[in-house]
């Protein structure tokens, strides 16, 4: 009796839990083929690609290509600018099953076709040209960028496939930049339930195979990935599968760990945090790194991603759960003060998108959309609106008004799990399947628009918003030069003549020059003189402080030797 009843409960429970996955979870055809092949193959030593290829750590001049074979073999990547002419080759003669090949010395913003194989020949290629990498643009380049954002995708069922297909359809039918996906941003929980290697195969590689071979995948750690991965030893499937820049090689500050890292793409700086395993305290290693990193970027846009949402009332609650509260209270004040524009989270299996926020770190019920004074909670006239061109107006940032960020909890790329969905900081809350696309492009007026769309599994775009930044395409160098000239005229005590490599000292009438000292930016005195014309041809380019002593006073002035 117990047995039957328990089964009944189990069935009932299963019904409650998985109603949204009513469609049978059918393995992809390629997976079936592979499994069957293993079963019937008479040639057990035939080398086959089991996973990949997939692309990692793309920079303007390099990319990492990874794949897995069924038996150990050498690693070869043939690549080139033309599909029919892959004349360059990178090899590793050590036999292995987990292949990782770095292509270096590439040109920025350039499409390279490639195939993979071993010394005996090609193991995987695309005759239609769908296996390629486009290297990242040079840092700071202002151009169209598209990122596909997937949160909590890894169910390996038809929900996930429908969300994927809706994006594929979107990107293939967009009139501009058709088919272009510069990167995939995974927000964690990429493979349910525990992020094992097999689960990753089913929910990640088999599902996104077509995109992974032509678009670079980045990710943060989700709690489900964290069940099998261990950040303390950076081991387990998540860390084995992904390669992330620990030494700042893709831009940003070296973190020394793959748990959190940063990279640049075009004029966007991405900061990836680990909200699951790593210490989230102010003053902890991750915080110190993030602060140093964000305060060192000169990029136009700053996007951050981590798994646990700072605002949510979905299947998780940001008012009650420690990790969520800590990320909000500890990290967000620092990141907002340093100009973060967009925060991407998952964990709750829904889509929740905020107003244009600044300075709200409390619970949902403390949020006041009408508070637009300095420090919160919404920014600007349009900040408490929907951020839509055809609605309340887009969110606005200028060189003068730099505050404001949109927070998105988008964890429904594989399933929905409901919840109250009534967080007050959210402009939109939907219990719907979908993924997001972020597009950055020129606004035609010297600025740029960052637009995010939520693409449902049924191909509908259920939400979108735009953040506009004015003036970022202006020639900053020319503005600086003009400002400098004015500064120099106003401060005539020390004047650098670049043509003659001389610093002229001009003291006030009635004062007599006694001594001049010049210090480099490390505070070291590099020149001592009593002359009013000082030869600085021996000094390196850089910033200097000139200290001028007269019989009446001491003056200091900074100069830049260029």
């Amino acid at each position, binding site marked *: *009796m*117990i047995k039957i009843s328990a089964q*009944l409960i189990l069935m009932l429970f299963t019904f*409650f839990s998985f109603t949204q996955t009513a469609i049978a979870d059918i393995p992809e055809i390629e997976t079936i083929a592979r499994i069957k092949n293993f079963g019937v193959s008479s040639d057990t030593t035939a080398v086959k690609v089991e996973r990949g290829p997939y692309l990692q750590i793309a920079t303007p001049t390099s990319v990492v290509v990874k794949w897995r074979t069924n038996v150990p073999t050498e690693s070869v990547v043939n690549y080139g600018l033309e599909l029919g002419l892959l004349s360059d080759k990178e090899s590793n003669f050590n036999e292995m099953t987990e292949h990782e090949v770095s292509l270096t010395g590439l040109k920025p913003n350039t499409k390279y076709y490639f195939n993979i194989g071993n010394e005996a020949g090609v193991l995987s290629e695309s005759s239609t040209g769908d296996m390629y990498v486009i290297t990242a643009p040079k840092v700071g380049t202002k151009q169209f960028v598209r990122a596909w954002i997937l949160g909590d995708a890894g169910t390996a069922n038809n929900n996930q496939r429908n969300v994927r297909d809706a994006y594929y359809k979107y990107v293939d039918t967009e009139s501009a930049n058709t088919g272009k996906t510069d990167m995939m941003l995974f927000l964690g929980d990429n493979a349910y339930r525990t992020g094992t290697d097999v689960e990753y195969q089913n929910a990640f590689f088999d599902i996104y195979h077509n995109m992974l071979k032509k678009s670079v995948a980045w990710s943060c750690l989700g709690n489900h990935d964290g069940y099998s991965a261990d950040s303390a030893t950076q081991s387990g499937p998540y860390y084995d599968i992904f390669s992330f820049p620990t*030494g700042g090689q893709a831009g940003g500050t070296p*973190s*020394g760990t793959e748990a959190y890292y940063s990279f640049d793409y075009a004029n966007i700086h991405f900061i990836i945090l680990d909200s699951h395993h790593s210490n989230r305290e102010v003053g902890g290693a991750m915080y110190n790194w993030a602060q*140093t990193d964000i305060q060192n970027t000169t990029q136009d846009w700053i996007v951050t991603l981590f798994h646990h949402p700072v605002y949510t009332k979905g299947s998780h609650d940001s008012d009650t759960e420690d990790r969520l509260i800590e990320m909000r209270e500890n990290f967000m004040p620092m990141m907002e003060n340093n100009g973060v524009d967009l925060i991407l989270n998952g964990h709750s299996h829904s889509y929740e998108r905020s107003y244009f926020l600044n300075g709200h770190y409390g619970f949902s019920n403390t949020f006041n959309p009408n508070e637009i004074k300095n420090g919160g909670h919404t920014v600007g006239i349009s900040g408490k609106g929907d951020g839509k061109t055809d609605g309340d107006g887009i969110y606005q940032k200028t060189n003068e008004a730099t505050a404001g960020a949109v927070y998105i909890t988008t964890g429904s790329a594989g399933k929905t799990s409901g919840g109250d969905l009534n967080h007050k900081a959210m402009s939109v809350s939907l219990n719907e399947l979908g993924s997001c696309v972020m597009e950055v492009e020129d606004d035609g007026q010297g600025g740029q628009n960052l637009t995010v769309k939520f693409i449902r599994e049924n191909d509908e775009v259920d939400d979108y918003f735009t953040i506009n930044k004015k003036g970022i395409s202006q020639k900053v160098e020319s503005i600086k030069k003009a400002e400098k000239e004015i500064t120099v005229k106003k401060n005539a005590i020390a004047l650098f003549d670049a043509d003659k490599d001389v610093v002229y000292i001009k003291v006030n009438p009635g004062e007599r020059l006694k001594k001049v000292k010049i210090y480099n930016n490390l505070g070291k005195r590099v020149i001592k003189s009593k002359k009013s014309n000082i030869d600085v041809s021996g000094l390196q380019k850089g910033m200097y402080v000139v200290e001028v002593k007269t019989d009446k006073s001491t003056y200091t002035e*900074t100069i830049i030797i260029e």
Partner: protein
Amino acid sequence: MLVKLQFLNFFNFFCNRKLLVAFCLIVTIQMFGHGDLSERILLKTIEIIEDPENYKLYYERGFLYQQHIDYNEALEDYIKSESLGNTDKVLHYRMAEVNYLTNAYSNALVNIGAYLKVDSIDVKAKKLEAQILFKLNEYEKSLKSYQYVLQNTIDLRPEDIIEYTHIILSENNKNYNSAIVAIEFGLQKLGSNTISLQLKKLEYLKESEQVEKALQQFNYFIIQFKRKEFWFYKKAKYLIEINRKKEARITLKFATRSIEELDTRFKNMESIKKLKEQIKNLENKTNQ
């Protein structure tokens, strides 16, 4: 007739107390529960109801409880699993973890000792042992265990190095030189520009009053970073702390000029506005 039988089965089902509780749990979780772990704990509970002598199930539920931060329930399940015959070393590791997390350090040490008896080279277990010993103020033993971890972990993290230096300084709060040697070891392993380690090095140089080396360390940051305004300010602040006001004044000039050189939007960020105020305050101090 068939309808009546089905009704009776349904009635019997609800008369079973255990199952009724489980049913209520399901409904509760659906109404209030957040997260997949709660669901998995419930499923495991149902499996245990089916097979109450299976030690594997108690271990598995215990681990789910542990992930759910229900440490007492986790430990109860682990103990039950052990009593039913589970001798797997991993059980001891998990028990050690839970005892450590609940501040039961002596018990944790016993558990991790049992694990290490079976597997003495596991770096993760050695690390936990070091952490437990640290909490028990057994610093020398803790350092010994941690040294093994540092020497044998393939992918060290900056956090490991920092934790190790904390143990060094707990053992001897003046032993900054050894702590700095450990930091250098970390920089060698993880990359010379690993920021959290370079920051920790600066902190230790300052705390140990190695003034010139600390200033060199500030210079490292000034050279290393594109944006230098924060580093000039921090260096100037330190110079004032050690009463070198003239150098501080010059360094503050660099900080101010660095801000002037920033693009307008950075100048208007809250962090830079605050920095400007801090520079002004320091300038006032240098003039006193």
